[in-house]
């Protein structure tokens, strides 16, 4: 049985379609990433799965329980961490943890082994008010609270947004650890570089799923040769490159422009055509998930 089965789920807010018939499955014990920009419908999907919203059509099962009919059962099986920090600012770290433990009718000690790797990092500050914690510590506290009742499925809505790079990396290590303990994790992020840390990912945009695969599988799906180009006048270069022979697409990507080509493309001919650009530099690149995302989005 899959941990999460989503079948043709749709949700609109007035005329805006937040989710447009989404279907996918998350296997038990999987670390599944939902990758997409803001407004892709990620949070709506989380709220539906957390039984906070009702779908317009379609349905979903968590651990075999229907999110509408068996919402009570689901609430004790999931750990949900909303995108915004939503613990009590005026309660201390310890009080927050004890409070949520009490709401689920458990004792902190019972789950301590599960949360220890995370909670022990903030335990020195247990008397501090939650509102006074740093961003990274807030995330750790929120994750501890979401785990307090030993959920079988964790729903993490953009847990790393607004957190520094080191804390982000630490956070993913923690998720790895939780996965090893058999917890299924559905996590969303707008950062493409985090996608590679998931078992499988779904790329989504504007309420639709563009593709689902392992991170490597997604990248492998990018079959066209990819180059990175650079010159002094970057903007002019972008325009010129787009009209060059054999070029399918060209878009800015960090300090390079990425050049997607077809098989008729030749590096020498391209360099010749662009000879007016000073300091032109061209090199073959391995595609990233973001390249795949851009390709899928344009299709």
């Amino acid at each position, binding site marked *: 049985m899959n941990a999460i089965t989503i079948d043709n789920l749709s949700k609109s807010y007035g005329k805006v379609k937040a989710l447009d018939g989404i279907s996918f499955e998350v296997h038990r014990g999987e670390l599944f990433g939902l990758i997409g920009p803001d407004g892709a419908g990620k949070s709506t999907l989380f709220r539906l799965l957390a039984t906070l919203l009702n779908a317009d059509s379609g349905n979903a099962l968590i651990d075999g329980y229907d999110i509408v009919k068996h919402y009570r059962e689901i609430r004790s099986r999931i750990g949900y961490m909303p995108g915004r920090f*939503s*613990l*009590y*600012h*005026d309660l201390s770290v310890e009080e927050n943890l004890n409070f949520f433990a009490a*709401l689920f*009718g458990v004792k902190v000690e019972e789950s301590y082994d599960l949360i220890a790797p995370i909670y022990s990092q903030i335990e020195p500050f247990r008397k501090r008010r939650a509102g006074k914690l740093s961003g990274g510590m807030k995330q750790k506290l929120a994750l501890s*609270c979401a785990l307090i009742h030993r959920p079988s499925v964790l729903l993490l809505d953009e847990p790393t947004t607004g957190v520094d790079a080191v804390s982000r990396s630490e956070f993913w290590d923690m998720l790895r650890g939780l996965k090893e303990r058999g917890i299924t994790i559905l996590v969303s992020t707008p950062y493409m570089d985090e996608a590679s840390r998931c078992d499988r990912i779904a790329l989504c945009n504007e309420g639709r799923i563009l593709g689902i695969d392992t991170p490597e599988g997604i990248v492998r799906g990018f079959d066209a040769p990819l180059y990175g180009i650079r010159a002094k006048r970057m903007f002019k270069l972008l325009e010129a490159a787009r009209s060059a022979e054999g070029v399918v697409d060209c878009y800015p990507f960090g300090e390079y422009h990425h050049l997607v080509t077809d098989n008729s493309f030749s590096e020498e001919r391209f360099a010749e055509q662009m000879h007016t650009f000073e300091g032109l530099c061209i090199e073959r690149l391995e595609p990233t998930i973001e390249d795949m995302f851009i390709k899928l989005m344009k299709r």
Partner: protein
Amino acid sequence: MRTFRFLLQKEFLQIRRNSFLPKLIIAFPLMVMLLMPLIMTMDVRNVNVAVVDRDRSTTSSRIISHFGASEYLTPVLTTSLYEEALAALERGDVDVIVQIPDNFERELSSTTPERISLAANAVNATKGGLGMQYVVQTIAHTLTELRGESLPVVRSELVTVENRYNPTLNYRHYMIPALMIILFILVCGFLPALSIVGEKESGTIEQINVTPISRLQFTLAKLVPYWIIGLFVVSLAMVVARLVYGLAPVGSVGTIYLGALLFILTISGFSLTIANFSETMQQTMFVMFFFIMIFMLMSGLLTPIDSMPVWAQRFTLILPPRYFIEVLRSVYLKGATIVDLWSNFAALGGFAMVFNTLAALTYKKQA
């Protein structure tokens, strides 16, 4: 039950942690009870009287000295020229002009004596009207006294006046029960509504909603602390009324607490309904404020319902505070019992049921 205890504990903890609320809960009732009754008074004092004395007799000077003795009247001017008095009235120095005609004393015993004429500045209608009444009463009193002296047989006064239940017509005794209601509306109406909407604003309600606790538990945990605080506040107000103003309920305290309990239930159900429809604290504040204006001005808190237009009187029937005000005043001043006030209790009970049902129906744990 254990879960509920934790919820309650958390609410109290949050109230205590709040930098502002605990102070408000103590300071607000004290301020309302200590200051407001002094300010909100309709007793008219310091009515300035000008006497145009054309008579210059013992009678006229006796009338003037009686004005001086009255605690409401202050004779500021005695003259023989009406124009002078009128000028003073126009300047605003004088509120009432009393004109005692020539030969007033001599003709007093005749069948058709000259009349004393009065003129009042009625820009402030209450002051003018009441001031005039005080003047008439004082003069009548003086004349009866004079007649009594001149005749061997003591004649009884023709009219006797007695103000039942509030013998001195003390406006404070009328206002203090009303002020207690304002305290209730604020503590049991405003605060829980703001507390719930606050959880919506900070997003914590999301986290609560995914836990297995029921909405009834969550809502009750929000209300119970304010019920307790509300009863504490009203007890404090009653103690202040007793110690500072010497006002103790003639009827039983139990009747007051029963009414208070029903009113608390009503007003918190009402505020919950508003909270359910609001997304932000601002929204809640404005909507609550709108209703509180209506409650304050139309429930007979400040002005008697009987003197409102008929349509407005009918409208007051759907205002819950109206019934509680009546309970408080009747118990405090008349010593009314539950039996006397059964219709008010029934109305309050009905409102409590209606608003709480409404609150339960409009609460959505899912959107």
